[in-house]
């Protein structure tokens, strides 16, 4: 069996708002194996980014908080780890890249300084070593003239270049896990393809496991091994990528796939899922997708579905798959 690097069990994250606490992530379970790419997909607000920030414990202080669950990394629970130890893992063994490369780098420091900071801190390199390693890293993410770019400031580079810098930074300490939160969303399509290609190449070279958060199913199909589909704070379906695209089970996943344009089809309009994501203050009593579900049954409004195992690692949170109901 593949080596389990990261295992999330029963993760619940809450946010304080003026109208009381809101549970953004509700009992999420998943694991990530060595060298694997796991995609988490879902609409805005489904809890996918919050899940990734919970793992890194980068939730906004005093507002977001993990209230339940375990996040096991190499068998140790990150949530119950002393801050000091966590700092040695964060940025070294688990690193993260973000959606907005333009605002994710500090505008007043040179690229080289921001890169070498990680190396000096985690790899205990001296100033000169770290600077040289930074140039090398920039070269490895396909930046030309890296010895000049290290002396540039973030505002002098384009979005694509900055995301490459972020990736270089994320990979600088050869992390075991790279969390990429919508790494291509802010970039234009041609650059998106390059960045994904780069991430895959680096994954092959360094055997890094990637947790890819995205709302783009095309990206998932291209790079992921396994996929989690999230809806309103719950995982609604989990499967390997081929199963998910060939035999989607949850009506939400089916709906998402129908929304994607296909090359061999001529359609005037794309399909869409009726309705909108429920407000966190007024979640449906039963299945959270029920109000928008084309296959809604009477019991969907009253009973909460579990995540039912369909075999071969395929799981689905829908009453249609409850044994005895089928």
């Amino acid at each position, binding site marked *: 069996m593949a080596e389990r690097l990261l295992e999330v069990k029963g993760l619940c994250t809450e946010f304080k708002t003026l109208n009381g606490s809101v549970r953004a992530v509700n009992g999420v379970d998943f694991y990530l194996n060595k060298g694997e790419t796991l995609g988490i997909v879902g609409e805005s607000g489904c809890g996918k980014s919050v899940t990734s920030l919970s793992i890194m414990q980068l939730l906004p202080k005093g507002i977001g908080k993990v209230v339940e669950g375990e996040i096991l990394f190499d068998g140790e629970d990150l949530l119950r780890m002393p801050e000091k130890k966590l700092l040695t893992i964060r940025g070294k063994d688990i690193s993260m890249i*973000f959606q907005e490369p333009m605002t994710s780098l500090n505008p007043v420091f040179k690229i080289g300084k921001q890169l070498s900071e990680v190396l000096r801190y985690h790899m205990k390199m001296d100033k000169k070593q770290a600077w040289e390693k930074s140039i090398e890293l920039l070269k490895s993410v396909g930046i030309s003239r890296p010895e000049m770019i290290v002396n540039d400031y973030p505002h002098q580079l384009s979005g694509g270049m900055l995301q490459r810098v972020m990736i270089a930074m994320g990979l600088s300490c050869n992390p075991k896990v790279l969390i990429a939160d919508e790494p291509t969303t802010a970039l234009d399509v041609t650059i998106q393809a390059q960045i994904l290609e780069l991430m895959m190449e680096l994954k092959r070279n360094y055997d890094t496991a990637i947790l890819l958060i995205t709302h783009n199913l095309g990206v998932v199909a291209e790079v992921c091994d396994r996929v989690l589909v999230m809806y309103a704070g719950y995982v609604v379906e989990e499967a390997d990528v081929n199963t998910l695209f060939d035999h989607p089970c949850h009506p939400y996943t089916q709906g998402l796939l129908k929304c994607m344009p296909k090359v061999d089809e001529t359609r005037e309009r794309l399909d869409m899922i009726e309705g909108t994501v429920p407000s966190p203050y007024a979640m449906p009593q039963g299945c959270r997708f029920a109000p928008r579900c084309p296959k809604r049954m009477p019991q969907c409004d009253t009973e909460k579905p579990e995540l039912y195992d369909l075999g071969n690692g395929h799981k689905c949170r829908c009453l249609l798959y409850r044994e005895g109901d089928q």
Partner: protein
Amino acid sequence: MKYFIRRVLYAIPVLILVSLLIFIMTRIMPGDPARMYAGEQAPESTVEQIREEMGLNKSLPEQFVIYMSDLLRGDFGYAWHTEHEVIDDFAARFPATLELAICSLLLAVVIGVPLGILSATHKNSIVDHFSRLFSLAGASMPVFWLGLMLVLVFYVKLGISPAPMGRIGNGLNDPTHITGLFILDSMLTGDTAALKSSLSQIALPAVTLSLASMAIITRMTRSSMLEVLGLDYVRTARAKGLKERVVIYRHAFSNTLIPLLTVLGSQFGLLLGYTVVVETIFAWPGIGSYVTDSILITDYAPIQAFALLSAVLYLVINLVLDLLYTVVDPRVKYE
């Protein structure tokens, strides 16, 4: 460099306008300098003679032309009430004001900035509540009242502070003149008695002068830190696994320097204005109290020189700050 020259050139019309305004304002002021100088009992003929000596019998435009041409020759006029050239009086008194201003600004920054940072990183904690209350109080207390209260409490009631009379205690000699700043001079000459005395003499006026600025600096630091702490690159810094201290002081604070510098510049102007009040309360022999005296006996030349000097200082400080922006923020560039 080109930018620098342009800015210096821009300053010229500003200064001409300022001198015109000051000129007009002094002439509007009630009171007749010649009568004040001659005394109430002096006969009208004597007053007329003095008026002629002062050049006040000429028409206003004529007086202005003379004033401007004197200025261009570096002549700031004659102070009748001290019977010295204004420039000599200024030279003698400026170090006292400079020392007071530096101490106040230093106090304001050294206390205000860390308090603002602490307040932002511990939002809604006791520290934060205290700092917000403090900055509200500091900004709303009138300087003259605060000065008198401090004297009342620390000198009259508690007796910890020396009498609010000047820069150095009774019976002590001024430290050997090197820079004119007593604290610095006494340190340089190793004169511990003078150092101790001048420090305790400057404490109350410096606190009085700095409190308003300190309050504004605290608030400004707090609000810009709060803004920066929520930004993506601070999250990135945390994601790198950096210590919270490094995240706050290196990554977040360095991005608040621009608004902070701007505030410092405007605070300097405020400080200059307040020296007039504070120096009078504490009998501080600086330019502020000198100008107060001049205003009270309508001595035009020192008032004009003070206002002009303030304008020049203000322009210079702001130019320096604008140039400093390019140092603290690489995105700022001047053509």
